[in-house]
């Protein structure tokens, strides 16, 4: 296993990074905070790069790529705290491609004309459900009774929530499962929902890596430039160690996430455990980055005028989403100690 990105991946990542640097600035983020939806004309622009259709099969105008490339892109998205529902659409896309590929729903996603949201069993809220053109909903966790429905949000009762991260537009979704919306049922559906949950957790982990890098860069930049009592605060050992500890966490989380992407992309037996480890490590790195970046910034970092909070709040939210640390540690423990079965279906 080569734990490094290939050249094409490098090129692709750089293209995405440059695009986001220009089109997802903190000014754009603040705009998303005050808008009703984070879905914007940028979605179509992302489509031109192939990002929205990254995991859409080629016969449906997508790039037909997998979890490794998706993670690489989501890490870049995390660096920019991209508010667009990229991950949720990708998770939905995987289920659509498996069970409803020919209903003409995939190509519009790849072309950036359509947004898909997803609600897996045990998940409390769906992101951007109102702005989405379709909702992929998993019902029940048990192998026997698992079902996957593809629904028009208009036919659901949506209750808007407000997140501490105003760019996350969450909705409680109430809907009636009917035969017309059913696309899969039984063990096949259950297994697909489990893989979807793993893709979501992996994607969140990659996004958290990007957030961690961004918060670290902000804190390093501030520590270099901020002078107190005649010296840059970055010359204080306590500041240096705060930031060094974040880098250690980040550098050890990254290969764990890459390994999980490798395993999930190939369906290795260890995939579920690897993904859970990735979510735990990336989440802890982001959590430490938020705390230490805030500590290094001091009072100015505690204001909303400063940009740091835009990234901290996303990190807190994604840490709890797609299964929190406790859920994923439990999955690893169950797999290693084998004294209680690892949940096949997600139980966030």
């Amino acid at each position, binding site marked *: 296993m080569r734990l490094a990105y290939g050249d094409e991946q490098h090129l692709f990542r750089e293209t995405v990074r440059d695009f986001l640097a220009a089109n997802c600035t903190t000014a754009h983020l603040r705009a998303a905070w005050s808008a009703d939806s984070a879905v914007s004309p940028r979605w179509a622009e992302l489509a031109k790069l192939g990002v929205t259709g990254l995991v859409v099969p080629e016969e449906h105008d997508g790039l037909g790529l997998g979890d490794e490339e998706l993670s690489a892109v989501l890490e870049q998205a995390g660096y920019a705290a991209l508010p667009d529902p990229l991950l949720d659409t990708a998770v939905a896309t995987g289920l659509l491609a498996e069970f409803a590929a020919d209903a003409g729903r995939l190509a519009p996603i790849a072309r950036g004309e359509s947004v898909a949201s997803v609600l897996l069993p045990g*998940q*409390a809220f769906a992101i951007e459900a109102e702005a989405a053109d379709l909702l992929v909903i998993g019902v029940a966790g048990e192998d026997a009774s698992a079902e996957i429905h593809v629904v028009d949000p208009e036919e659901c009762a949506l209750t808007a929530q407000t*997140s501490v991260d105003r760019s996350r537009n969450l909705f*409680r979704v109430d809907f009636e499962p009917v035969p017309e919306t059913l696309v899969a049922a039984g063990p096949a559906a259950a297994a697909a929902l489990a893989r979807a949950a793993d893709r979501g957790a992996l994607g969140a982990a990659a996004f958290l890596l990007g957030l961690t890098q961004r918060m670290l860069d902000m804190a390093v930049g501030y520590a270099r430039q901020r002078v*107190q009592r005649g010296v840059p605060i970055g010359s204080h050992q*306590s500041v240096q160690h705060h930031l060094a500890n974040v880098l250690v966490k980040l550098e050890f989380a990254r290969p764990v996430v890459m390994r999980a992407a490798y395993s999930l992309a190939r369906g290795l037996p260890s995939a579920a455990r690897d993904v859970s480890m990735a979510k735990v490590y990336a989440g802890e790195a982001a959590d430490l980055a938020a705390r230490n970046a805030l*500590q290094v910034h001091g009072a100015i*970092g505690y204001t*909303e005028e400063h940009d740091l909070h835009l990234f901290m709040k996303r990190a807190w939210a994604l840490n709890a989403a797609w299964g929190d640390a*406790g859920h994923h540690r439990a999955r690893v423990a169950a797999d290693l100690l084998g004294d209680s079965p690892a949940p096949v279906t997600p139980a966030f």
Partner: protein
Amino acid sequence: EYGGRGAGLTEWLIFEEEYHRAGAPGRVSQNGIFLFAPTLFEFGSREQQDRYLPAMASGEEIWVQGWSEPEAGSDLANVRSRAERDDTRGGWVLNGQKIWSSRGTYGHRLFGLFRTDPEARRHHGLTYFTVDLASPGVTVRPIAQLDGEPGFAEIFLDDVFVPDADVLGAPGEGWRIMIATTGSERGLNLRSPGRFLAPAQRLLDLYRQRGGDGELRDAVVRAWMDAEAYRLFTFGTVTKLQGGGQIGADSSINKVFWSQMDVDLHATALRLLGEYAELDAASPEAVDGARWLDGFLFALGGPIYAGTNEIQRNTIAERVLGLPRAR
């Protein structure tokens, strides 16, 4: 009856314990009574105590801290706001700027240090003033904070007159007065145990309702134990004060502990809430009106304000352990 150092502190502790058991939200508890009262009990004249305390206790008058100044960073001795003598009117004329002033936008009175001797450097030549924010020449600019606290502000003073009756203690004694009850150059570090015991108790209830794995259960119990340890530590401090001792740099030990405990306690609560943790008060499905999220955001300020915990640790190392000055 306010007078008497130890007594005053004990009253204050008891007041707070009751106050928080009644379930007052964290941010309101930040009222000046907890920041200014201990100093007033010790250094205020009887006349000042009678004049300030009733309206303060009833909450009619909100008190605003005026410690930090722009560019001063964590260095509170770096006071540039000045007060010039005005004998004709029997008082002082204040000019300058204060920043990070909690409750500044809706508060009534500010307390803080001003430089009365332009020649003196740093800790010297500072005087402890209280300022009526309705006075002519006061301008307030709000600053939005993570905890959504609307009150945070920058306060500009432009030829603001303050009568001698509103000077706390003797002119030039400001620094000594500020650190005497707080023992810290970094401002007021004491927090009442009740402020943490009440949420710790609520955290136990939250765990009973929602459950969690062994590691989370452990964190919940830890939060309660820390709050209890803080209560015992504080009583020890009061006992020491009643014995005539000074808090001294102990307040740095106190501050490092409570600020970390407050963050951990609320972070643990948010872990119990899982996906519901991020919902704020405006959210229909927010748990307990999002008080845990509010409390967490509020707590995040703890390790930063009133002297960052890094500075507190330096203080502990140098003042208590007698290590050489940090480089």
